[in-house]
């Protein structure tokens, strides 16, 4: 009996201690609705180091929600799809030794609402490392609750910071080839004309080529100048990246239809375009044959290497031409009738004489 009483008192005591600890040190609470709002900076991160050395970078993360969050860091990797160069997020695989090179000042941490935390990422690059390594550092809730109610699915989320790490070695190959330089149409009624530049990285490390498209019309040079990859986006090895650049400095011109601060989409999710007639730009009526010359450069580690391409297209504003011809025909008919009447009058006058 006494033993039971002792056990009960002990359980009660431990329970009280537990409640007391919970009151003093409450667990970080997630938003009641499960929402999560994270902000990261900077992005992406480009790091260059030499084999056998280490490199660090700060990564800032903010809890943009209204509740304190306990967050964790998960390390993943990414590569680029061969076909379009877009990033492909991938879970780690056992052979991914390079993921073990990375460490963080904190793997899990607590962030109050609107609090910025700075996490230092360190990459200890071994002596035998070479070329490029691509990390995705994912921040997410440390203990996301799995739904216990029936008829529900769980949706968990995270934000990733992509890190491109180059272990610089002398025998790295940097090489880029143009696989396509084209326009989306051969003949346009009105601009924009969208240029597609497909570049394939045939080297062993990521590169960021950039340059211009010069648009000429006959002997008239540099009618327009477009920038390609002005933001220095990288192309990963063994992948092709598309760069699309519209030429829209024209009159009239199709632009994205916008409403209430949103781009208007059709049922298929495509952007709805509308023709805009800004008569202040009337001098930019485009017509005739145009030739676009592309000149890009990239650094092969020794010098800037040029890449060139050329494509031609036509702009035929057929509706404007039709209206013009229609008016011209009427003018000519009117002129002909006027001259005929004048001739008749003169002829009649001479006959009377």
């Amino acid at each position, binding site marked *: 009996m006494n033993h039971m009483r002792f056990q009960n008192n002990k359980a009660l005591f431990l329970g009280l201690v537990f409640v007391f600890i919970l009151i003093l040190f409450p667990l970080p609470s997630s938003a009641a609705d499960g929402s999560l709002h994270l902000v990261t*900076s900077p*992005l992406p991160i*480009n790091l260059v180091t030499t084999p056998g050395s280490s490199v660090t970078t700060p990564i800032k993360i903010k809890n943009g929600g209204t509740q304190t969050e306990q967050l964790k860091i998960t390390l993943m990797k990414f590569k680029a799809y061969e076909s379009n160069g*877009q990033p492909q997020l991938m879970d780690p695989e056992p052979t991914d030794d390079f993921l073990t090179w990375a460490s963080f000042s904190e793997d899990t941490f607590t962030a109050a609402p609107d609090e910025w935390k700075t996490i230092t990422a360190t990459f200890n690059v071994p002596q035998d490392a070479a070329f490029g390594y691509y990390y995705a550092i994912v921040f997410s809730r440390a203990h996301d*609750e799995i739904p216990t109610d029936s*008829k529900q*699915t769980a949706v968990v*989320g995270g934000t990733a910071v992509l890190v491109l790490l180059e272990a610089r070695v002398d025998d790295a190959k940097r090489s880029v080839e143009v696989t396509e330089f084209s326009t989306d149409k051969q003949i346009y009624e009105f601009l924009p004309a969208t240029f597609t530049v497909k570049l394939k990285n045939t080297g062993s490390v990521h590169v960021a080529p950039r340059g211009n498209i010069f648009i000429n019309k006959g002997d008239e040079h540099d009618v327009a100048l477009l920038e390609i990859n002005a933001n220095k986006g990288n192309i990963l090895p063994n992948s092709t990246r598309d760069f699309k650049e519209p030429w829209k400095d024209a009159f009239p011109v199709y632009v994205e239809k916008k409403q209430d601060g*949103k781009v208007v989409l059709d049922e298929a999710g495509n*952007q709805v375009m509308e023709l805009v007639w800004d008569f202040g730009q009337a001098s930019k009526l485009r017509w005739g044959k145009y030739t676009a010359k592309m000149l890009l450069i990239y650094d092969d580690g020794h010098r800037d290497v040029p890449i060139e391409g050329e494509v031609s297209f036509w702009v035929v504003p057929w509706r404007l031409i039709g209206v013009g011809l229609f008016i011209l025909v009427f003018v000519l008919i009117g002129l002909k009738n006027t001259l005929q009447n004048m001739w008749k009058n003169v002829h009649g006058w001479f006959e009377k004489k």
Partner: protein
Amino acid sequence: MYREISLGNGMRKISFSSIVVFVLVLILPILFSEEAHAAGLQQAYVRLDRLADGATTGGMVCAKSATASVETTVKVTFPSGFATVDTPANWTVTTTNIPADATAWIGIGTASAASGQDVTFPSGDMVVGTLYCFNFTGTSTLTNASAANNLVGTITTQLAGPTAIDSSSYALSIVTNDQIVVSASVPATFSFALSGNTDTMGTLSTTTASSTGKTVTIGTNAASGWVAWVKSANAALNSASTGATIATAGTVNNAPSDLAALTGYVLDVDVTTDSATGTGSVTQASDYGAEYNGTNTTSGGTLSTTFQPIAASSGTTDGDVLTLIERAKISAVQGAATDYTDTLTVVAAGRF
């Protein structure tokens, strides 16, 4: 003692005292005369646009007349050490942005003379007690002296002749550096917001059931835009209690699966908002999101246990919104259970 001086020839005699008075009248003004001086202006200052050592500058000249007269010119004498360009036509003027208590200098115009430290501008008749101001251009006119304090110049109003009417000194200080370079940087940021961590599917049946949907809102100033991926824990809805499974429908092949003709479990990702603010456009392109671009209420993409792209944007945005809707349709023989569930993991990132 009264004496008269006879002038003879019948002329009237003049007293000696008269002569003394006459001589005094002639001499005293000479003895007690003072040099004529212009009066001081009631207020006078020059405010330069730049105060840096050796900087080319324009400035503002202000003065308040003290003497009632008819001004025709104003002469500004710059302190020694200032370099002036002796081309009057360069010294153009304006009367904009002058102090609130000042009046545009009456009759002011391009300088009529510029020589040495003196630059003379035309002026109209100034009203005594009124503060007049004008600006002279900084283009090919004045270059500041070396850095020093109390560099004194003068402003003189003149009437035709020219004759000084009012004149006052002003002082300037020249410094080695008069500008503060403000620099700032805006780091690239990426904002990711998920509206909740559970999504209710409801009761599944032989017609397509859809979840209420959860939104992912993405904002970034990254010039290359953003990408988003999703993966499923099971690529199926699993019942832990019965072990039953509702497998995902179709295959990942760039085309959504329509549950109107199939049974299974899919995910539809709708571009709810493609923000008009920013340079980016949201796309679900071939090989990059087209799989999940369901265009009706029964379609969606095949789920995978590896990350699959669901949408991407080509540039900056202040808030693109994706809505994730799970859809499921079962066969008539699907095992009964109340705990079919799956976990979707959504990750988004700024592009490299």
